[in-house]
């Protein structure tokens, strides 16, 4: 569904991604694992059109999207649940959700999507008039996912969705992502909870210092000694 070839990205003179190539097959979860500063967020933002690549190519559904502005990438159906939630703090929950549906592709079915999100997260429905900035971390994360779903994405990129959540909520969160994938959505999952997320994922890539150093099925990567040592402390 998404395929990346030889992607390199710089911040000024500092290289953040070095010749990255990867494929994200449709309808499953692809995990991206790496230490802090490995370049995971950079990768996601480059796919989303928020950063520009120095070289390389990103194609989505057989179409090259490198260089497209962010709002056009989103309108192709590539959604993002960003690192640190990134809600609109002074907007209400409902206004936040509405902002997710500003894409031309999602305008018409906004009402229906809103109902779907509220059914999925009843908590958001209870708090629809509350300012997003005053909600708890877990609620904000639900909001970020709900807002993303309002744009009717076909591919969602999750950047550390469980950051700052309690262990119980982390499991809930991963279960939610699992069920979204079951319903046919393609997911890219960046997670600190390496073991849990690899179990969930069909494919996985390990990113180190901006390079892909290992890839394979989720189970294979989980079984790899280097991964067990570096990320699981085993």
């Amino acid at each position, binding site marked *: 569904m998404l395929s990346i070839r030889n992607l390199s990205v710089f911040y000024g003179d500092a290289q953040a991604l070095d010749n990255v190539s990867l494929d994200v097959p449709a309808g499953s979860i692809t995990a991206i694992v790496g230490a802090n500063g490995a370049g995971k967020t950079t990768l996601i933002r480059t796919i*989303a059109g*928020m950063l520009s690549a120095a070289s390389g190519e990103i194609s989505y559904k057989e179409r090259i999207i490198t260089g497209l*502005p*962010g*709002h056009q*990438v*989103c*309108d192709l159906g590539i959604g*993002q649940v*960003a690192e640190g939630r*990134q*809600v*609109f*703090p*002074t*907007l209400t929950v409902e*206004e*936040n959700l*509405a*902002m*997710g549906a*500003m*894409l031309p592709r999602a305008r018409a079915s906004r009402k229906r999507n809103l109902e779907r999100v509220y059914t999925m997260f009843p908590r958001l429905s209870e708090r629809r008039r509350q300012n997003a900035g005053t909600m708890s971390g877990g609620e904000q994360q639900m909001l970020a996912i709900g*807002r*993303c779903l309002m*744009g009717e994405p076909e591919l969602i990129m999750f950047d550390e969705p469980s950051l700052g959540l309690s262990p119980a909520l982390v499991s809930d969160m991963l279960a939610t992502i699992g069920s979204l994938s079951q319903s046919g959505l393609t997911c890219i999952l960046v997670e600190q909870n390496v073991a849990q997320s690899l179990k969930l994922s069909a494919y996985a890539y390990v990113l180190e210092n901006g390079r892909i150093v290992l890839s394979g099925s989720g189970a294979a990567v989980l079984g790899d000694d280097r991964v067990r040592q570096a990320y699981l402390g085993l």
Partner: protein
Amino acid sequence: MSLTLSASVIVQGVLTGLVYGLMALGLSVIFGIVRVVNFAHGEFAVLAMYIAYLLFFWLKLDPFLAALPIAALFFGVGYLLQRALINSFVARAEHDQFILMVGLAIVLVNGCLMIFGPEARHAELSYSLDSWLAGPLIIDAVRVYAAIGSLVVALMLLAFFRLTDTGTAIRACADNRLAAAIVGLDTRRLYALTFGLGLACVGAAGAMQTAIIDPNPSLAPGMTLLAFTVVIVGGLGSLIGALFAGILIGVAEALSSLVMAPSMKSLASFAVLVLVLVLRPQGLFGKGG
């Protein structure tokens, strides 16, 4: 000094203040959302005044009616200006933006000077000197019209931001730029709309001012300062705050020109500014500490 005189002066101050408020609203919208200080704000106001004057001179178009087409024109100018020029400065340092806008201000004000000369131009309306007696108070008709006009435009703007999706999207940009990019809002377009709206406000305010003040290039820097002061007193990003601060400054100026020399009236607005900056730096209606 009699009570009724002070009361009349306060009412005049409130009425003038609403026009200040609208002008400041334009600056506040641009400043709060695009994060660029429009140092050419007063220059745009003067430009609007001259256009209103010309429309009156040629077509006998009343400045209060001319406010509409002028606002529309300024919206377009602002939109294009943001797209073509200012957008590339959004990510640049504050002082670079400052020089750009000062350059623009110099161009605008000297353009006016070249075309119209340094003397003030006067638009003689049939009702220029009308005034009403409300009980013991004397109130100028043109000020009432200008105040009502400003209030209407300001409320329309507030409604736009509260009630429409595009308005909400603009607020969202101001709230969290990164999040706006993440959900796929076209921030460049929204910034251009915002700049257009900001200039539309100042265009409307300027046009209506023509009925009260005679346009003159030398008014411009003072107007920029005034708008800037009102925005900071009201609190950055607070649109209601800009309106209230406009009234506050209008009244302060009116009262101080009553008790001191009229030439000292801007002393009052600066005194208010200094007080606010020292006691409540985020502005009267600003958020946070």
